[in-house]
Each structure stands twice: as C-alpha cells, then as structure tokens.
C-alpha cells in the first residue's frame, strides 16, 4: 500500500511540475463561474445554493476529466517510463491505483479551487452547507469513476489525442446512459439485456441524488464497483499493451 502512495505522490507532483496543471485549474474555475452565474441563472433563481453549479458539473467533467486522464498511461508508454515503472518492485495494480489516485487528488484540488462559489452563496444567504458538502463528494465520486475509465482508455494507446477523444465518448455514455438520447440509440442496435445494462450504468441518476444531499447505498456501491472494474481493466490492458 505504501507504494501506491509513493506513486500517487510522484504523479501528483508531476502534474504541478508543468504549467498544464495551472492552466487546467484556472480554466476549470472560470468555467465553473460561467456555468453557475451565467448558464445556471444563479441570480434569477433567487436561491442561495450551489445547485446551479452542480447541475453543470457532469458536463464540465465530460471534457475536463479526459483532459486529465489522457496522459495517465499514454504518456508513460510514449516516453518509455512505463518500462522503468513496471520493472521496479511494484505490482501492476499498485502502479494503476497510485496513478489513478493522483488524478482523483488533482480533481479534488480543482473542486477546492471553486471555493469562491461557496463563499458567495454563504455571503448572499444561508445555504445548507451539508447538502453542498455531499454534492461536492458526489461530484468527486463521479470524477473518480470517469478517471478510472479514462485511465483504462489511456492504457490502450500511446496517442493522447486518441485517448482524449475516446474517453470523452465513453464518458458521455456513462454520464447520459439512462437518458432517452442514449437508450433509444442503443435500443435500435442492441438486444434488451444490453439496453438494461447500459441503463444501469447511468452515472447521472446517482449523481442527481447527491445534489439533493442524499447518498443512497446503491450509489456508493455503483461508484466503487465502477472504479474497481475500470482499474482492473486498466491492469489487464496494460499487461497486454505496455510493450507495444
């Protein structure tokens, strides 16, 4: 387990070793403000809460998560450091978990950086900070699921652009499965069991619950099983593709 944290620490330091992290954080915070106050009609709603922000979080993550996850393994494979990492005395799951954990940590930093929104609603009114806290945790769980998926996609290719585009497409399916736009399309091309499976994968349904300050056990199970599944898939993909 110590190795997981050593890898996560190195990886997280790696994010901040380049300007990319700061560019990412600044744009994420600016866009968070834009969606909350502009698209979310914050002032017209007349309610001091952050639901205007959290309604848009899945759509922000749809683009921002693949931007973080695309480099996780594609870059290691391209630069050859994957050979160094995998010949150190660590197991593949330690490497995969460590790097994923760092990416979750980075997104957590991005969420913390949206604190001006929280200060604003507390200044303007008397919001339920418990609901806000649960909503943030829900957003982080959604990010964790999408990052685990992005990690797997990134292990597939040395090309970060391909990793980004594929991750956006799969993230779209994960977030929106269960909505008519996805289910109708799947129904047209796949049998019912697959339609049901896609519907059950819907992250949006679970995420909406946390936006109301409500954490269902099924949502916790969903998030954990999705993360475990995608990280396990990453280990498998990496074992087969690392030397290509």
């Amino acid at each position, binding site marked *: 387990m110590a190795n997981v944290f050593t890898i996560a620490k*190195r990886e997280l330091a*790696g994010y901040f070793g380049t300007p990319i992290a700061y560019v990412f954080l600044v744009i994420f915070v600016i866009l968070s403000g834009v969606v909350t106050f502009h698209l979310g009609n914050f002032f017209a709603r007349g309610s001091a809460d952050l639901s205007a922000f959290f309604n848009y979080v899945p759509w922000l993550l749809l683009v921002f998560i693949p931007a973080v996850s695309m480099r996780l393994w594609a870059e290691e494979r391209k630069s050859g450091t994957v050979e*160094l990492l995998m*010949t150190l005395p660590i197991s593949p799951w330690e490497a995969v978990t460590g790097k994923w954990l760092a990416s979750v940590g980075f997104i957590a930093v991005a969420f913390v950086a949206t604190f001006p929104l929280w200060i604003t609603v507390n200044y303007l009114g008397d919001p339920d900070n418990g609901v806000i806290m649960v909503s943030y945790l829900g957003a982080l769980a959604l990010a964790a699921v999408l990052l685990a998926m992005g990690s797997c996609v990134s292990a597939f290719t040395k090309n970060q652009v391909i990793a980004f585009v594929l991750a956006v497409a799969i993230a779209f399916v994960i977030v929106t499965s269960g909505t008519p736009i996805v289910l109708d399309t799947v129904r047209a091309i796949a049998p019912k069991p697959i339609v049901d499976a896609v519907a059950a994968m819907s992250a949006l349904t679970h995420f909406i619950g946390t936006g109301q300050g409500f954490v269902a056990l099924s949502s916790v199970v969903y998030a954990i099983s999705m993360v475990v599944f995608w990280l396990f898939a990453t280990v498998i993909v990496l074992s087969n593709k690392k030397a290509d």
Partner: protein
Amino acid sequence: MTALLEIDGLYKAFGPVRAVNGISLSVPAGEVLGFLGPNGAGKSTTMKMVAGFLDPDQGSARICGDDILLSPKAAKQNLGYLPEGAPAYGEMTPVGFLKFCASIRGLKGAQGRAAVDKAIKRTALSSVAGQTIDTLSKGFKRRVGIAQAILHEPKVLVLDEPTDGLDPNQKQQVRDLIAELSEGRAIVISTHILDEVDAVCSRAVIIDQGKVVADGTADELRQLIPGKKTPSLDEVFRYITTSDAVHRSEGDHG
C-alpha cells in the same frame, strides 16, 4: 560459483517474428557479460524479459534464485535495470527522481538520502542534481538512468546500452564504474561498441536472430575465425552474424 542471474530457455515471438528463440545463459558473481548482436537480434527483448517487463512465451529468468515470473517483487529487489534509451520522468530533477526510486525500493528517510547521495556521486551527477531531467544532455540523462539502476546496490545489473550517447570521457567513467561495481555482482551490458568488450567485459555472448551464436572471453571469440591470428572483434562479429555464417553453423549442427 553460483550464478546470480540464470536465463533458462527464453522464447518470445511478436506475430510471425521470433525475436528470441531459446536463449539460455548464466552469469555468476564477479562477471561482466557483454551482450552483443546486430540490431533486431533480440538483445533488448531478452533484457526486457529478464527485467520482468515482457512475459516470455516460454522459459524464465531467475535473479538471485527468485523467478521473475513467479516472485517478481523479490526478483526485482535484487535487480538494477537500465532500459534502452534511459527513460526518466522529464519534469523531475535527478534528486527527486532518485528519491522516488529509492522510496519504491524501501529506502526511506536517512537511508534513502544516503543511497541517493552515493548514486549521484558515483555517476557524477552533482552539478545537475537540481535541474529538471528534460533540460539535461543525453549523457547526463543516461547517467540518471544508471544512477537509478545502482541506487539500491543490486546483486544483478542489466544495462541496455549504458554508454550510448556518451562522449569518450563519460564512456570511460561508466566503464570504470561498471568495473568497480563488478565485484560480487553479475552484470550484463548490451552494446554495439565492441571496444567495450575488451575494456570492461570478462565474457561476451553474441546473439543473432534470437539465438546465442558465440559465447566466451574476447580472446576465445577471436579464435572463432579460422586461419586468422589476431582478428579484431569487429571482424569476429561480422564473421559470426552474417547470414552465411549462421547458415554454416546451422549446417554444422544439423
């Protein structure tokens, strides 16, 4: 002498190409083995399998008795490996990078710092220890890779082209370092530079098309060309690895 590194019947194919075709070797303590062969002969693939990066189709390698497939963590603890091209995390400094490797290898706190200091001193990296690796010259990058490989004083060192890209002075430093490290250790270095064999290796193996085609000291290899008194190792290499020679040797065995 007990062998610290034992390679036992390694096979690896990539699609229809048989990259490694039944290589067996054993390297005892105190030996520096030069691993020679033309490009594409299977040198790097063999080294990747020994280091546990690639899974062989058949066969295995044991490092200090630990099988790289069955107990990879134990085997890797006793192995220092420099991958081809000496990859390292470019945004890190050599010190940060070596501290990370030390930490993974269980060298933490004062013990880790001492190991990093020693590796930096041995590879003459002090002057650039605080610069990011991306900004370093090829020679320095190579030495960062070597420092990472020797950090934990491993019993077995596998170095894929350790002197590639170094200037003559740096090459000599690395050769001196390898000679210094050889006591009590098994070292395998792959190289294209045949001078290296005379300079630093106690034994050389030439592989071609995934097979061992010659194995011996530099002097023993020189005797492989019949009727020529003191051929250069370049001549021996060309004689052994040209396709005519391979066919001739296959015919001899057949």
